[in-house]
């Protein structure tokens, strides 16, 4: 519509500002937003387009940022009291790329503090509600990003996914959530939770939108040593190709105990769709993943987090206690006051995991099992192009339902966590609704750097269904 000049970027931005003003009081997806700045960038986009210098399909499109991704001059709070007053003096690499493509950074979106959680209730600035049912969680940790897109406050947002933090909220909010292969998208400027698992990805209404956003943010970055040099295909063009009859693997362990019957049925219907589309469906087994992924994840993620979050000490920036008397008490009290319960729980766990005498038993062994889990996925991929499963065992749960039970909360990531441990790409897309009207997510897991094929397979499903055209009543 922008290209056809049937609407201007300024009109589009004004519409999203108005929509946000109307619904944000109920959803609370944003931590902060700069309307004046966004409208200014929209005007600049219109000027470019008028001069015939539009920068491509994203020019003039508002994109939200999970509040852990740096945008120069904007707050970066990680939904923590620790960073409540922190303004980032620099752009993340994904921000630089999106700005260069003409996209408009639109708002800082709520999350579980430092991306630790699955409900966006662990936020120092209050919980975000699920637009489909305001008494329920939007998922997490990228819950603000998911809720904002689902509520129509923006067409797309960036999130980060460490154990399912994009795919699970996408499932809960009826969106497409894409977690790329580890190393495809630069982490430079993403406040780290667990460095070896974190990956920036997208939350959008459609697979096509995900492909366009990924196109812009993917690629090697000399500022991130773990970003890999790989040829970036044309993801949007790939959506139109049907390469061959796909071989779809279905991990039997992902359909076991704890899976909600409605979700199981919806995923079976998706399988039936693919079978009728000519795909070869085979049952596969991921026993190690099913048995150990959550344990391994919580050892590795907390260990890395305990070290990554050490920098938040009140010395150079961030919350500093007013009652400290020496350096040690600046640390202890600033961190005691600045971090929330879940963050403290994980720092303590991770510190213990790395302690002298426990390192071999916990961290080192967890890394070995992680290698085995990756090997297990890679063996399965010898006979499959992608794997297909539910994204979550249940639909969105009630606000407060699991917030006092960390273990129940951790189990919500059971189908998504293995993907992060193995560094694989994964996508969640809507595949139906529960009887209660809550969205259900279908997860497709791709091979390393197999985003194009994974997106194509997801797109094929989306073309055959209309779930993505449904909007919540707000």
């Amino acid at each position, binding site marked *: 519509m922008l290209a056809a000049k049937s609407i201007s970027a300024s009109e589009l931005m004004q519409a999203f500002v108005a929509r946000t003003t109307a619904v944000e009081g109920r959803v609370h997806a944003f931590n902060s937003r700069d309307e004046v700045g966004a409208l200014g960038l929209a005007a600049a986009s219109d000027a470019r387009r008028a001069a015939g210098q539009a920068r491509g399909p994203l020019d003039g499109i508002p994109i939200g940022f999970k509040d*852990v991704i740096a945008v120069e001059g904007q707050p970066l709070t*990680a939904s923590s009291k620790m960073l409540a007053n922190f303004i980032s003096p620099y752009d993340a690499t994904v921000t630089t790329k999106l700005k260069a493509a003409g996209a408009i950074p639109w708002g800082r979106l709520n999350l579980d503090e430092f991306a630790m959680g699955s409900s966006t209730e662990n936020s120092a600035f209050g919980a975000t509600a699920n637009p489909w049912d305001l008494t329920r969680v939007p998922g997490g940790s990228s819950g603000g990003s998911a809720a904002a897109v689902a509520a129509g406050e923006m067409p797309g947002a960036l999130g980060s996914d460490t154990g399912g933090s994009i795919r699970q909220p996408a499932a809960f909010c009826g969106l497409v959530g894409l977690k790329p292969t580890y190393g495809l998208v630069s982490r430079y*400027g993403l406040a780290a939770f667990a460095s070896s698992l974190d990956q920036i990805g997208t939350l959008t209404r459609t697979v096509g939108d995900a492909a366009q956003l990924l196109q812009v943010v993917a690629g090697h970055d000399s500022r991130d*040593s773990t970003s890999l040099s790989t040829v970036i295909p044309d993801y949007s063009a790939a959506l139109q190709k049907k390469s061959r009859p796909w071989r779809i693997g279905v991990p039997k362990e992902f359909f076991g105990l704890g899976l909600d019957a409605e979700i199981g049925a919806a995923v079976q219907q998706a399988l039936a769709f693919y079978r009728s589309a000519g795909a070869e469906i085979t049952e596969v087994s991921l026993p190690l993943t099913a048995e150990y992924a959550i344990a391994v994840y919580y050892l590795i993620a907390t260990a890395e987090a305990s070290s990554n979050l050490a920098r938040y000490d009140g*010395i150079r920036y961030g919350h500093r206690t007013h009652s400290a008397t020496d*350096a*040690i008490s600046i640390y202890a009290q600033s961190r005691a006051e600045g971090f929330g319960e879940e963050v403290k729980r994980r720092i303590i766990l991770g510190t213990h995991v*790395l*302690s002298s005498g426990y390192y071999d038993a916990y961290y080192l062994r967890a890394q070995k099992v992680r290698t085995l889990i990756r090997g297990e996925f890679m063996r399965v991929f010898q006979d499959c192009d992608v794997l297909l499963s539910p994204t979550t065992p249940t639909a969105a749960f009630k606000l407060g339902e699991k917030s006092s039970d960390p273990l129940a909360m951790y189990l919500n990531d059971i189908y998504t966590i293995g993907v992060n441990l193995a560094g694989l790409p994964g996508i969640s897309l809507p595949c139906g609704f529960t009887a209660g009207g809550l969205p259900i997510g279908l997860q497709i897991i791709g091979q390393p750097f197999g985003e194009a094929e994974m997106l194509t397979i997801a797109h094929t499903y989306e073309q055959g269904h209309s779930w993505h055209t449904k909007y919540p009543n707000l």
Partner: protein
Amino acid sequence: MNYEAVIGLEVHVQLKTASKMFTRVAAGYGAPPNTLTDPVVLALPGALPVLNKEALDKIIKAGLMLGCTIAPVCKWDRKNYFYPDSPKNYQISQYDQPICLAGSVEIELPGEARNIMGEHKQIPLTRIHLEEDVGKLTHEVHDSLVDYNRAGTPLMEIVSEPAMHSAEEAFAFLTSLRMTMVQGGISDCDMEKGQLRCDANISIRPIGQTKLGVKVELKNLNSISYVRDGIALEIRRQTAVLTGGGSIVQETRQYDGEAGTSVAMRSKEMAHDYRYFPDPDLLPVQVDAAWRATIQATIPELPYARQRRFITQYQLPYTITAVLVPERALADFFEEVAQLCGHPQAVANWLVNDLRRELAAGGIALAVSKLRPAHLAALVNLVEQGEISMTAAKEVFNDMFQTGEAPAVIVMRKNLKQSTDSGALEQWVQAAIVANPKAVAEFLAGKEQAINAVKGAVMKASQGKANPRLVDELVRRQLLAGKS
């Protein structure tokens, strides 16, 4: 009972790189506080480290110079501890797989006299690893200030085996290590700027015992003479404790060089648990044979090997080589001039005496002086060929040090060429013999040095331009001719 000291050193050497170890900000000393920083140095949310290849090149070079085994894979670990000078509250370091293993430092102990080479020994190394430096804290009355300019500078930690037995050996170790690192272009090793820092682990044991005694770590040895004095003090302290029937406590002590004392800082019980684990932000780096070979090709001759070669190849006295070799630029200059003119001893004398004096007087480095190797070679040749006198040569040297002009030009400009016109010379000799009958008589009577009065008169007549060798020859010939 007699005790033997056992000393191991941990030496930190800042690598001389253009930028910091994990970011592109410049590394340097003396900039206004907190100006050499960026999101990575300050550990802002989202900042990530990227390895500076130059730092790895330099430590590999250091390792190859010291005969270390270079690990095929270079991996990074996080050393976790909270301290305000450490922006991330972890230091990126190398824990269980250092880049360099084993190797040794050749040391020279003091000789019997200044002009006699002392004993040489190889002190074995345990390992060398690479890590990042921390910031600098300044404690005021009510506040502490921190400057992160130094934070993130590549820092090499060199750990010796406990293989030294005296403060002199430790001093010699550090002297040799510094000389080697400076000559390899690896570091400037300026201890005042903190580019080289040394901690010592010291224990003593009864002579003959193989089991090591309880060790004490001595810190704050921030000059090379403090290293010697601090270790000597600690050996005396431990000896006094044991002799007095006491026992040594394993602890870290802080040396106070000005007061010549040390105080206990912390005991073993307060040791940190650093919770080392592999840094997930950095990938291991493969160092293959081709990479090693590329660096090997840049390695200069080691100082002590060069000194031995100078003694044999150029027949230089030990004392001269002991001045030339520690300064690579001077030694390089020497070799270049010696190759050009072929009078190595004369060249060495010019450099060790005249050039060093002029450089010191002018307060300038050889690299920026106007003296060109070819010019010094030409000057040496002029003297050797009798074209100018030594007195004139000194004048030419000072002139070319100031002006950078070729000696031939200066000789011409100042009219310093020795006269070789034998017609005029014969006349001056005749006149001098006539004018000094007493000296002539004494010489003919056998008093050799009486000839100097005659020669002096000739030189004076020639206004110093006569070639002394020719004058000597002519005077003798005429005197002896008159005699017969």
